[in-house]
């Protein structure tokens, strides 16, 4: 597509097409959108983050999609979010207020090697593509690679499993890049990592049954967010801490971000209606993105209005 207006948001796209979209969006909105390369993947692909900002030195709200490469509806939703933010700024009062106070950071393809692999070799690939010494099995689960209960229950030491944690915390460059960026930024106040397909909104912890000191607040905000989401198409979400809602998972993204002091840390599991799983038909991309945006807006607004 030559512009983000002619881009087809209702189909799945390759990594190169997504990068072209990112460049177009930046070129079309030079005063609002910029691209930051926070690092490179194992195979050398750029780890691009879109920064929506109207002023210097602002607190920020982070969103990432596609850390599990086969969850295609998440990258597709990320593209839609990017266009929505650029389009609504100056038109939608709440989003305009948000961007006049905080930045939004959006990493659309968080695991580019895996994503390219899903297009070229194995549509069901979930992990990164880094080799594991002593094993023929490739890749690490980037959502078990964070320094938060790393190596504990709910992750695997077997490189041939889908939940292989990697040789050490932050061993994956895709994870390390975010870790370094979050630390160097130092002012990220909200963080959402987006997955599919269990229809859940989750918050820390996953590696321990201990409740965070902010459990009640996160629970209330999550309830408001899933109610907003359901208001559009009636999609039913559950919500709660990771360990209480799904299972014990060690080394997860948002446990690390919470422990870094990012109080408003959440993880989404976007929709499926129990029919398609990771092969969600493309005609559900826009409805999924639309309803998720309503929930995201609630999370962003709460962060904006409760900076700490």
């Amino acid at each position, binding site marked *: 597509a030559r512009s983000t207006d002619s881009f087809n948001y*209702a189909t799945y796209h390759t990594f190169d097409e997504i990068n072209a979209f990112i460049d177009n969006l930046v070129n079309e909105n030079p005063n609002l959108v910029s691209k930051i390369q926070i690092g490179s993947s194992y195979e050398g692909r750029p780890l691009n983050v879109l920064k929506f900002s109207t002023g210097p030195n602002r607190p920020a709200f982070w969103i990432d999609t596609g850390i599990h490469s086969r969850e295609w509806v998440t990258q597709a939703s990320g593209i839609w979010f990017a266009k929505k933010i650029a389009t609504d700024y100056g038109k939608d009062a709440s989003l305009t207020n948000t961007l006049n106070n905080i930045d939004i950071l959006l990493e659309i393809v968080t695991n580019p090697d895996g994503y390219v692999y899903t297009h070229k070799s194995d549509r069901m690939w979930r992990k990164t593509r880094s080799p594991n010494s002593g094993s023929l099995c490739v890749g690490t689960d980037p959502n078990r690679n964070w320094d938060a209960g790393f190596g504990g229950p709910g992750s695997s030491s077997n490189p041939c499993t889908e939940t292989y944690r990697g040789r050490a915390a932050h061993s994956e460059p895709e994870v390390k890049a975010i870790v370094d960026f979050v630390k160097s930024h130092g002012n990220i106040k909200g963080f959402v990592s987006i997955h599919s397909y269990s229809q859940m909104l989750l918050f820390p912890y996953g590696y321990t049954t201990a409740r965070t000191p902010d459990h009640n607040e996160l629970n209330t905000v999550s309830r408001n967010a899933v109610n907003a989401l359901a208001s559009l198409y009636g999609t039913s979400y559950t919500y709660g801490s990771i360990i209480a809602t799904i299972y014990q998972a060690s080394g997860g993204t948002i446990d690390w971000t919470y422990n870094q002091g990012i109080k408003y840390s959440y993880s989404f599991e976007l929709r499926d209606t129990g029919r398609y799983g990771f092969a969600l038909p493309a005609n559900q991309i826009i409805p999924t993105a639309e309803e998720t945006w309503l929930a995201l807006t609630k999370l962003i607004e709460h962060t904006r209005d409760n900076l700490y």
Partner: protein
Amino acid sequence: MENYSGQQVLRIFPTDEDQVNLVRALEDLEHLQIDFWTSPTKVLLPIDIRVSFRNLQSVKVYLESNNIQYSIMIHDVQSLLDEEQNEMRRNRATEN
């Protein structure tokens, strides 16, 4: 591209903790090469597993012999992926 012809995704409905554990035990049987799309967690939460054509019968027999209810969520994974590819091609052609 990896071919998923004949592979199915089964949605399993454990009715008690023993059944959850029986499904969890499948994770350790590496030769069955089961891909857990959603993991065994707690009673009444469905579990989705992708099973290769070669192991489909063994897995179904295991579930049925333990009285574990399941349904076929996706009958042929490859046909869904083919449709996905066709749609992407169609969209590209339209854009061009």
